[in-house]
């Protein structure tokens, strides 16, 4: 059973969003990190990069696989979790604590297209 945190928004591609004013904090769900197995590298954008909802902004890598990270909202990257450069395993250890990027949203209405915890739980069939 994967952990699902209340109060977050979820995308179909297993990213979560925590809204802090006009900034979206983005990470991946417990289900996603379980699917990946041991994460060996998190390919992240740079501060000031633009991200677009529905498009790739990075990747999670394991020994044998690579999985795209899809932006749940559009905007400008204002912070990147540099801890993950040296310790990508933090995503495995605590998927909801290990945020990946923080995005200043250009269109907060995009949040409405995301699922809440209940809908996400149903979506992953648990």
């Amino acid at each position, binding site marked *: 059973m994967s952990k699902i945190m209340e109060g977050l928004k979820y995308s179909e591609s297993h990213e979560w969003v925590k809204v802090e004013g006009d900034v979206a904090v983005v990470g991946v769900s417990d289900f996603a990190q379980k699917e990946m197995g041991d994460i*060996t590298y998190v390919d992240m954008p740079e501060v000031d990069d633009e991200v677009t909802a529905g498009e790739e902004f990075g990747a999670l*890598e394991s*020994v*044998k696989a690579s999985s795209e990270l899809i932006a749940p909202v559009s905007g400008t990257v204002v912070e990147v979790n540099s801890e993950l450069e040296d310790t*990508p*395993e933090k995503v495995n250890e605590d998927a909801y604590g290990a945020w990946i990027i923080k995005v200043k949203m250009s269109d907060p209405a995009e949040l409405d297209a995301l699922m809440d915890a209940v809908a996400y739980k149903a979506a992953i069939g648990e």
Partner: protein
Amino acid sequence: MKYYDKLVFELSQEGRTGFSLPVNKYPAAPEVPAALRRESALNLPQVSEPDVVRHYTNLSQMNFGVDTGFYPLGSCTMKYNPKINEEIAAMPGFGGLHPLMEDSLVPGARKVYEEMNKALAAITGMHAFTFDPCAGAHGELTGLMIMRQYHLNRGDLARTKVIVPDSAHGTNPASAAVAGLEVVEVKSLENGRIDVEALKPLLGPDIAGIMMTNPNTLGLFETQIEEIAALVHGVGGLLYYDGANMNPLMGVVRPGDMGFDIMHLNLHKTFSTPHGGGGPGSGPVGVAKHLEGCIPAIKVSGFHGNFGVILRAYAYILSLGKDHLQKVGQFSVLGANYIKECLKDKYKLPIEGVCKHEFVFDGLINDGAHDDVPGATTLDVAKRLLDYGFHAPTIYFPLLFHQALMIEPTETESKETLDAFIEVMRKIADEAAQDPMILHDAPHNTPISRPDETTAARNPILKFQDTL
């Protein structure tokens, strides 16, 4: 195999030499000016010749090769590497030729290229070959460049996409991306073949062509190839053949006759040249007549391709001649079907029916999962095979099947070897059903056990200097 843990740097002692160079009889030339001179020390190992020989000999004894045992690796065609080929490749009258010597100085070398061209054309039904590419993926890239050049020559700038089946080897879409083409995936049916109905809506004036192999990566002959060729040609596209799976067609079917316009061959697969631990290979590209003019503009390697590999392949072709070519194809298919029939009661066979030179199992029928013990995976089966002295088959490819195990026995394996492999695979299946932990912990009998690949990727140590 014995565990030998030294690295050559660890055999080094200041002042040891392992080389023998002549005395310098020249007047001393001026030194390189200080500003252009190397400053840092050159910390290469200082080792004597006997120690170098012993070191690499010991290293070699931790390695498995075709000469050691069976490699049932699907899509790799690990056939026997004839030793006469090595003798030919080492002849000094070839080894001493500088690549910039003009043709009139090296008619013997040029003749090898001309005759290989004729021989490969005869075997494949293509019209002309370029020998520049140094590997299969390199050949794919070259072939796709030729495809693009063909359309550019026609003044057609709209051909920006290439269709690739979802069962394709990773080099196919990667080569397409390097060649500047956008990849459009076409789905496979449940029977593993290209879904022609799914192909039709993808075709249009932006399609440069389709990149596929036949038999496909599941070892199944694409029975609809005539229709696929007509559809792609119908929209002005070209057909590219990935020749990695050429072995079962040797002496039986020619890609050129099936409508393919461009293809590459892997000399280090179908044509018996040794794998060398990962290379060198050679990936000659053949084209139909109307594409021959596109070749000269495309320069993909420094000189004339891997001549040493081409020499070996030509010696092999001369040993086959017209007389033995067909047996290569037929016996490779015979062995694959035999293993399939003998193991399909223990391993899941997702697609029934006659296969070509290789086939895919989708994991164990009974993986022994119970209580908290997870079932044995394809990886576990592969590692347990190492304990019995066999190299594992190809695992987790093609991606269509999650526990894929792809087996290709090649025509140079005796029935006794195939039977021994079948017996071990049956034994492993029974072990899994009884107690999957035996497999989870495998291998037990190799010089080393399963490596910690996660740490290797998280904290990479990629050179000896990192460990000092």
